[in-house]
């Protein structure tokens, strides 16, 4: 049934016809595309490859740690492994991650728009990602990097590994991030459809918007810091080298001034995805929309004020440490608010445990642990013991992997049918999710214990600690076995996702019953997203949607829709 106000919800091979994937053909039509959807897909492939590379480094370094002493590599190689694992995961996967791969695809469609505000800038962002990644490949091929992803001076100004190339690569990647941020800000400000006021915007958009603010304001600081580092190495100016008047701690201030907001770049879009999925799969209006929306902005702002909590044991003054600790706790409150609101959304909902929902619930569990362990690290006295230990490693993996990556998987499984027009196997997806959950906890929970009991981070070998801590060996072995389980889970995921592309059931326009605008166009969307501007309602009002058994999807019931006239907001 079609109407003049709503686009036809089409599905099935006969109706799909032309879509953004088939609209033009040939490799040049991809390399030079201005279509945000194609750019999103290219980003998706690129970041998934980066995830694989970063994961490989993790698998290797954890294999080294399964036994004390040398297992499969030398100390120098190990130091390269943990450095490259961090650098690849952070700069190539997790920071671009959700905004670039999912945001690029979904944001314009969620706004009922044809594309982002600056399509060419969008393509430029992708090219910059590729160019920056090329530098990382260069680093890998010519001596690697052994400084830790944090590049602390004076080690990073004196080591003979390829710091300058790596800094250049990260500098370029920074611009990719900045351009994406500029694009999203402009798009959200100028391209919302009639009727979509700020308070009628989906929460994923609020999240991407807050993230974009951070990207634009914080990333230039990283750029300059990396530039100073490179200049220091090449020209020995004396910014950070104490032997010629510099201050190594200055580097830490500059570095963390970006890198702390960066973690909010990582987590805010993830939380946006959780808001969407919890609501849709509870078939209930998101609880506390306004509080969730503004908590994203609050996190973005407060995130700029807490960088010194990485430096409590650096010799930083007591006063500074006190202020940073107090402010650090302020960031925890908006995050807690979100979690309570998500739970309240589920209350009296109608919960469907499809794969996206499983990942969303997994997020609440894992991010819950990750966020709460942040409290330990923000408290000054506890931080003294826990800083630079495995406790920190576990904390940030719980928030970055258990948080961002799990939310990314939720989003990927939620929007996969929309992006590719195919359904994946729910059985294999759930199995993989179970393995991810078990593998993750087996890998990282023992690391909390390692940290509290005395295991420093970035240690190639723990032989010297076994005399007074014989249990460290078991903790490390558990951690490594969990890693292997995770690898198995991800391999299964890759297989069923790729399989769905060729043999999956064709997806209806709205398989999950979402009320945001992207579910009103076909799966996959046509080249122009919408033939005419769609009409905007409440993005969390599911009452207008009915299940259509024939298409195995949801459609807007025109009768219900017409009895509720859309509210004309100013």
């Amino acid at each position, binding site marked *: 049934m079609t109407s003049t106000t709503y686009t036809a919800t089409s599905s099935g091979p006969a109706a799909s016809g032309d879509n953004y994937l088939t609209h033009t053909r040939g490799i040049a039509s991809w390399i030079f595309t201005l279509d945000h959807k194609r750019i999103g897909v290219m980003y998706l492939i690129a970041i998934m490859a980066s995830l694989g590379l970063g994961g490989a480094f993790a698998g290797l370094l954890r294999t080294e740690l399964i036994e004390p002493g040398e297992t499969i590599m030398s100390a120098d190689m190990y130091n390269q492994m943990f450095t490259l694992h961090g650098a690849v995961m952070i700069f190539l996967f997790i920071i671009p991650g959700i905004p670039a791969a999912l945001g690029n695809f979904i944001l314009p469609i969620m706004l009922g728009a044809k594309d982002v505000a600056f399509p060419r800038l969008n393509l430029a962002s992708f090219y910059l990602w590729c160019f920056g990644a090329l530098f990382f490949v260069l680093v890998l091929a010519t001596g*690697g990097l052994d400084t830790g992803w944090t590049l602390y001076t004076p080690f990073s100004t004196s080591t003979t590994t390829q710091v300058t190339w790596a800094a250049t690569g990260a500098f370029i990647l920074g611009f990719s991030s900045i351009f994406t941020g500029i694009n999203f800000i402009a798009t959200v400000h100028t391209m919302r459809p009639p009727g979509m006021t700020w308070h009628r915007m989906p929460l994923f958009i609020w999240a991407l918007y807050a993230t974009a603010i951070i990207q634009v304001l914080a990333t230039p600081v990283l750029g300059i810091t990396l530039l100073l580092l490179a200049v220091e190495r090449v020209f020995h100016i004396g910014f950070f080298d104490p032997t010629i008047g510099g201050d190594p701690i200055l580097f830490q201030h500059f570095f963390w001034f970006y890198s702390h907001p960066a973690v909010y770049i990582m987590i805010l879009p993830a939380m946006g995805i959780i808001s969407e999925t919890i609501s849709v799969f509870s078939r209930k209006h998101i609880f506390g929309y306004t509080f969730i929306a503004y908590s994203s902005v609050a996190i973005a702002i407060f995130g700029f004020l807490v960088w010194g909590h990485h430096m409590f044991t650096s010799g930083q003054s007591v006063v500074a440490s006190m202020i940073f600790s107090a402010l650090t706790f302020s960031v925890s409150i908006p995050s807690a608010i979100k979690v309570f609101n998500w739970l309240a959304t*589920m209350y009296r909902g109608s919960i469907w445990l499809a794969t996206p929902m499983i990942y969303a619930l997994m997020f609440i569990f894992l991010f*819950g642990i990750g966020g709460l362990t942040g409290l330990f690290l923000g408290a000054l006295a506890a931080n003294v013991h826990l800083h630079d230990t495995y406790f920190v490693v576990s904390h940030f993996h719980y928030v970055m992997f258990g948080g961002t990556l799990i939310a990314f998987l939720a989003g990927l499984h939620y929007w996969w049918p929309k992006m590719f027009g195919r359904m994946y196997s729910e059985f294999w997806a759930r199995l993989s999710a179970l393995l991810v959950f078990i593998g993750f906890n087996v890998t990282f929970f023992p690391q909390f214990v390692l940290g509290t009991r005395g295991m420093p981070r970035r240690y190639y070998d723990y*032989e010297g600690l076994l005399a007074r801590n014989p249990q460290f060996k078991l903790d490390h072995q558990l951690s490594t076995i969990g890693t292997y389980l995770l690898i198995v889970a991800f391999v299964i995921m890759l297989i069923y996702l790729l399989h769905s592309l060729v043999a999956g059931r064709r997806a209806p326009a709205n398989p999950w019953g979402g009320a945001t605008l992207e579910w009103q166009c076909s799966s996959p969307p046509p080249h122009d997203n919408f033939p005419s501007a769609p009409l905007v309602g409440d993005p969390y009002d599911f009452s207008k949607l009915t299940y259509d058994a024939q298409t195995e999807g949801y459609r807007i019931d025109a009768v219900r829709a017409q009895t509720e006239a859309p509210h004309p907001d100013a």
Partner: protein
Amino acid sequence: MSLLTNLPLLLAQQRDNSFWMPPPASTSAGAVDDAFYLIYYISLFFFLLIVALMLVFVVLYRRRPGIEQKKAPAHSTALEVTWTIIPLLVVIYIFYSGFTGYLEMRTVPRDAYEIQVTARQYNWTFTYPNGYESPNLHMPAGEPVMLLMKSEDVIHSLWVPDFRVKMDLVPGHYTRTWFEAPEPGVHDLVCTEYCGTGHSAMLATVVVQPPSEFRAWLADAAKFAEGASPAERGQLLFRNQGCASCHSVDEARSAKVGPPLWGVFGETHQFTDGGSAVVDENYLRESILNPNAKIREGYRAQMNSYQGLLDDQQVMDLIQYIKALRPGGMEEAKAAAAAEKAGAEDEANGDADTGDANADQTGADGSESTQADAEQTSNGQTGTGGDAGTGSSDRPDNDASSSGDAQPDS
């Protein structure tokens, strides 16, 4: 308010035999553990609450055909304010708990016993007020000890988990930390700021001794340097300056990052540039002050220069030590020094030879030092690859010769 002030005391009972924390061994550990367990129980409560609600909702409100979901509001200002205010109050208390403990840990007692700490890639040197340098931290029980710390190269960090004490060591300025250990005992001291190849080998031991025993140890240890032969002084330097982390001195010529030194004096060495040389005093001096001028075949240019860090006498002592690394070499050196000393005492006092007592003293400390050596260097690094040391300009010799072609093994 009494519940709040007593809460930490309740938590303090968790200290021993715990799952999370090693037994506390300093007066600072209490505040740290209190903060930790306060946060732990609060976190546990909220986490279990959240997970329980989640699971209950998933079961209770699962989608079933024909079951109509009940209406529920989409917002509640009262609820929002409640779950904002309560967490806010909780974190304020957590902050307070963390802050008070930290303030105490960073306020050094006026009468603290000062020990200087120098960190370098990859060992520690603890220097006592009487000038004695030790690779391990001996300290008196029941007295506050202050560490005045610096690094010679990159940032390191000193952590004693049992004490819950940690502070970075930064090149170019001093940092300090303090602690008091009420009971005698032995504890791990680790480097916990990544510093390169030997980061995980940079271990030391904290030996807390009853005060009288500590002072006796210190007096004994300091005497070791008196009347010691140059070779024995060199042995001490070899241990304290980090040489042992890369060069073995045992007869078996154990493999480490750098060439083994047993029996090298008088050998002919081949270099990577095709040249060769006989190992004599000049060659050894060059190897210490300009190590990358000649690289032995099979090794890489990665040793830091000691130019500016050792004076001429110290370099000579090291050379004498290396010369003595042959069968009976150290014994001869010790005997020569003892004889010298005895002879000088004879002249001064006209008494009989008292050389044996001297030898006993040096032996006692010698064994401690080799054990510490072994502990310290048991994780002998066998990797090769890039190392720090080219950028610091107090080692100008290194800049030109240490080129960037040190490649890691694949």
